[in-house]
């Protein structure tokens, strides 16, 4: 009997794991895995270790109470402009829950090494890049107004800035399997287009030096605009997680999957009166706003505006060098 018990204790299947971080009781929306409800997410060694209800708080070194928030895969922004001629990916992406940001347009064969050294290797954000002409990869094209450009695209290529100033008919492009990405956005174009059913396949910021300031092209700002224009939170998250992961052919990203990289966003949906500007600097007043309160990248909390994962300093014990 005693021997049996000893055996039982040694069986690894019953072993319990120590977690580095546990997000408790958040409303998890993970479109790729069809999750939409309250559950816990445990993280260990930078990977998602377990997704289940009732994971004991005592098993994790750090616990975040996510009861008031949505927990989603780290967002993917497939259209930004980074580096010294663009913006800094880290504080402009991670603060908005974006853990993967794709540079769309600045990177060439000639400057890739410099871009890697100064931006990619220098950032906590996972920075990827579209490179014009690279074989076996999707191209992203911003010139929506050009009929010839659209004709030259292949299925799986991406047309961005679809709600730009002079949007042509995109019905054929969609029929041909060309992916439609939001990017620059004018309300006078986007509102009627969405009403007519032209939803984007992916939602991106198009952030650059100018648009980051005015209209404030951050991911949470853009998501808030789409909510205000009638998309559901689920539709918006599909287009900022699983959708873009598929578009850039990175099935390893954009979901909360056991064994996958622990890139997560904790989002708050706030009620109140908010206003958002479009690329033409016209305003849309709305009753909801998406805010990112916490971002996890490869298991590390890199943004935590509410201090959800942090200890109060009076409870933190004596500071090592200051009694």
């Amino acid at each position: 009997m005693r021997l049996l018990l000893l055996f039982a204790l040694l069986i690894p299947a019953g072993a319990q794991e120590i977690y580095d971080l546990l997000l408790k009781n958040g409303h998890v929306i993970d479109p790729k895995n069809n999750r939409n409800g309250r559950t816990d997410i445990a993280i260990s060694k930078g990977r998602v270790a377990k997704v289940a209800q009732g994971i004991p708080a005592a098993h994790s070194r750090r616990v975040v109470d996510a009861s008031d928030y949505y927990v989603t895969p780290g967002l993917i922004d497939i259209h930004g402009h980074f580096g010294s001629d663009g913006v800094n990916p880290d504080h402009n992406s991670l603060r908005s829950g974006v853990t993967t940001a794709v540079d769309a347009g600045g990177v060439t064969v000639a400057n890739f090494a410099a871009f890697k050294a100064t931006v990619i290797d220098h950032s906590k954000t996972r920075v990827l890049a579209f490179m014009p002409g690279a074989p076996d990869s999707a191209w992203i094209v911003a010139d929506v107004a050009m009929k010839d450009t659209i004709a030259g695209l292949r299925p799986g290529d991406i047309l961005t800035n679809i709600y730009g100033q002079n949007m042509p008919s995109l019905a054929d492009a969609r029929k041909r399997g060309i992916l439609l990405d939001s990017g620059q956005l004018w309300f006078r174009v986007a509102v009627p287009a969405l009403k007519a059913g032209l939803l984007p396949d992916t939602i991106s910021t198009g952030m650059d030096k100018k648009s980051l300031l005015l209209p404030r092209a951050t991911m949470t700002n853009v998501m808030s605009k789409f909510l205000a224009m009638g998309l559901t939170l689920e539709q918006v998250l599909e287009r900022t997680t699983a959708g873009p992961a598929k578009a850039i052919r990175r099935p390893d990203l954009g979901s909360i999957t056991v064994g996958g990289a622990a890139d997560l966003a904790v989002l708050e949906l706030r009620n109140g009166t908010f206003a958002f500007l479009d690329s033409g600097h016209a305003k849309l007043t709305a009753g909801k706003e998406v805010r990112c309160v916490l971002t996890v990248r490869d298991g590390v909390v890199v943004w935590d505006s509410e201090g959800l994962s942090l200890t109060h300093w009076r409870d933190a014990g004596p500071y090592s060098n200051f009694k």
Partner: protein
Amino acid sequence: MRLATILLFAAGAAWTQPRYDMLLKQGHVIDPANRIDGVMDIAVSNGKIARVAANIPVAEARKVIDAKGLYVTPGLIDLHAHVFGYSGSLLPDDSALPAGTTTIVDAGGAGWRTFDEMLERVIRPSKTRVLSLINIVGRGMVGQSFEDNVEDMDSEKTAAKIMERRAHIVGIKTAHFGGYGWTAIDRAIAAGNLAKVPVMVDDKIFVGTGRTSKEKLLSKLRPGDLHTHVFNDRQLEIVDRYSGKVQPYIAEARARGVLFDLGHGGGSFLWPVATKAMGQGFFPDTISTDLHASSILMAESDMPNCISKMLNLGMPLQAAILRSTVSPAKAIARYPELGTLSAGAIADIAVFRLKKGVFAFKDAWQHKHLGEQKLECVLTVRAGEEVFDLEGRGYPEWDKAGNYEVIR
């Protein structure tokens, strides 16, 4: 009929050509230089402050921005930031302007050898006004081995570069010197004497460097020199770690005119130090961020957050705005050119909301403190141009704007 309308419009435009480009209406203006602390309108014209008065008619401005319920201040001056040279450097515009900061002072990124590169690559292309405290190290803040190399600390060449670039260089920085003795600080001060500019000191006091904070503050620094990172524990025991009292030599140094700069950064703002010092009434002279890649995210050391931290430790808002506008401008001898809303001054303006609630603020060691007020920047004007407008206060609703092109 249509012709009549057009004529009427044209005539009307001629008669009532707005005098002002922009009017910030009904904000609570805090302009310490002019002792203004109350609801006022601010008119802007040709990039300059045109008028500050109680009731400026909206018809006199092309663009009217409702600032009711918000605070309006001079554009903030961040005396200690990093946008060149240092490995954690940020881009000025995307970090400063959304925070209401219109002037940043790069603290030691460039030295005399590299300053001209900074001028071309960072200062000239930025909307933010970028000034420099030039490093006493000729190559700038590019790593410990360079910063320890006294061979590259040339007072004459540093002073010569300052005198050549007076429009951009406002002082000298010495930082991170790990070697023995006073060479770095002495040469920085010698350059400061030659060029007649202040020195900002971030001195690593390692064991065995032969330096003490007391000697530095009482015998080395001149009146007007700046001691930065005031609330860290590493270089200066501002608060005696056993008695918990602010050191007497700190008050003595302040009486001599040495300035104490916040310089929050990724390692230099600790709650136990700040709480004890501020609790005894020891406020920093200037509020600055030491903003870089490792302080902007978790510690959120941007200007509105640094100010919020000060507010929640007992500094009144007016005193905090003084220390983010007038005081830093004076410290770099740019007052009253900068830091005021005086008529005729460059129209650098920040608009803030003071939010009430429960907010977490984080120190450099990632511990939190809870506070009940938080300052948030909602709008920034730089040289009369609205460069940041979080809530679209200066712009019309899209469905009332017709077939609009980019609205200015």
